[in-house]
């Protein structure tokens, strides 16, 4: 059932950010659900979500779970525009309320005590572009889904499987803005990974491939190239 998508006020957001240490036991226990409707905790975004999605997410730390969860989150939050997705207050609300149980199970361990503070700072908040894209428990999944759907609008799942097949591949693609930014190039890299499957599991081969893409692709305008020309260039980079 759909319900409004909320975000936090800046002051509630900043207060949470400052008090991670003193709130540690809330993070390791039941969280902040009782505050969901408090002033500053529920500013309407005008968008809707189905919060049930967060109940079925798999908290396991694996590429397979990240892939499934990315699709779940992106499909549930498709109405979010990229501009909305840059607002850390929205993601901080989700990780503290609607997606709290998933985020705690995925990133915190009660037995780790104060080591959890760093995990909370990274995964329950979204600091800067890297924090949104790589760290926030839910935002990172949304951006995975968004970038995959830009590359392959008709089949984002297949793009996600390739991008998330290893941490190394995600790092070399999504975390390199000048690759992930350029949809025709990233789409071509994914096609090449399908043709040359070894790129999906041979880390050294993939790294060398990406080094050549960077070295030879500097100054090339992939946006005016046909798919087959992009593929030809990329195949040249494997040799």
């Amino acid at each position, binding site marked *: 059932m759909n319900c409004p998508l909320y975000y936090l006020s800046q002051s509630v957001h900043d207060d949470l950010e400052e008090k991670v240490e003193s709130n540690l036991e809330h993070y390791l226990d039941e969280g902040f659900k009782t505050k969901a409707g408090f002033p500053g905790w529920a500013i309407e975004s005008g968008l809707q979500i189905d919060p049930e999605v967060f109940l079925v997410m798999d908290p396991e730390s694996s590429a397979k779970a990240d892939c499934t969860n990315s699709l779940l989150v992106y499909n549930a939050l498709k109405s979010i525009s990229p501009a909305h997705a840059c607002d850390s207050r929205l993601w901080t609300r989700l990780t503290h309320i609607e997606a709290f149980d998933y985020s705690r199970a995925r990133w915190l361990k009660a037995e780790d005590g104060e080591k959890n503070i760093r995990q909370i700072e990274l995964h329950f908040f979204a600091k*800067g572009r890297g924090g949104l894209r790589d760290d926030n428990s839910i935002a990172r999944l949304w951006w995975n889904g968004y970038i995959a759907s830009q590359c392959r609008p008709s089949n984002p799942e297949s793009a996600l499987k390739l991008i998330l097949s290893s941490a190394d591949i995600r790092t070399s693609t999504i975390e390199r803005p000048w690759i992930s930014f350029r949809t025709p190039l990233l789409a071509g890299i994914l096609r090449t990974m399908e043709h040359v499957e070894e790129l999906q599991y041979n880390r050294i081969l993939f790294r060398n491939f990406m080094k050549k893409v960077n070295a030879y692709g500097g100054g090339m305008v992939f946006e005016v190239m046909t798919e087959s020309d992009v593929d030809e260039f990329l195949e040249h980079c494997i040799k």
Partner: protein
Amino acid sequence: MKFRQDMLFGHPVLIREREDYLKGDFQLVFDNPVIEAPAMLIRVKPEVNSPDLSELIHEGKAVCGFYIICENTYFNRFIPVDLTENLFKFDAHDFAGAVRLRGVIVSRETIRGFQSRVLNPEFGERPDLPAASILALDDEQKFAVGQISKKPFESIFSLVADPSLPQGKVMVNPLAEKIQIYAHPGTKANIDEFRNTEAGRFVLLNAVYLPALMQLLHDVAGQREVYENKAWFAVFDAKCSALGVSLDNPKPLEDAQKLLLDPFMRLEEKTIKERLLS
């Protein structure tokens, strides 16, 4: 794989202040974007003052266009344009913060034996121009979208006590999520005291924040990749874009004054001046 003014190409590229061509100029003139929510309208007019490149465009061997890039939202598109005036409509929700525009002319195919009377002789008489390559590159132009550029500067700075510093000195650390201004605990206490009055805040703008921003502009110049994942960067970049401050080639004193809206003028306001000098 960014396109930069100082990039080295193996073929001639028409770029301002480079001498690949002895004559000629290329520019895309952008009107200020108009936001008519949910649309963002951009009017563009190319000025190609190079008969040789114009001919390649008319023959369909090259295309004129522009990149529109918003790093925060991963928006990066190449938009081809006619050589007349063009109006483009984008979805404003695809942008947040700094947006960059850069005009280019690109080869659609390999152009063999390119001829131009104004080509620098170092390229030989009839060089080949590779396919899908930049043939002309305009300066980058920037603007800002959304509320992010309107966030107060205070939201990206934090004041930190550091007993290792001598009293009266301040240092800037841009490597944290907020830009940290370090000061001796006694100095920090004094700064806090100044912050409690209107006149005191204007003094701090001039004595602490202006030099801190100058230092920051100096540090960031040409090294944005070191800082762009820091939480403060998106706000700072958007503010710079809104005011036309280049992070690649800043003028620290001039730009810091621009960003702080000429802070000395605050001290020149009659009531503030009287309070400070009485």
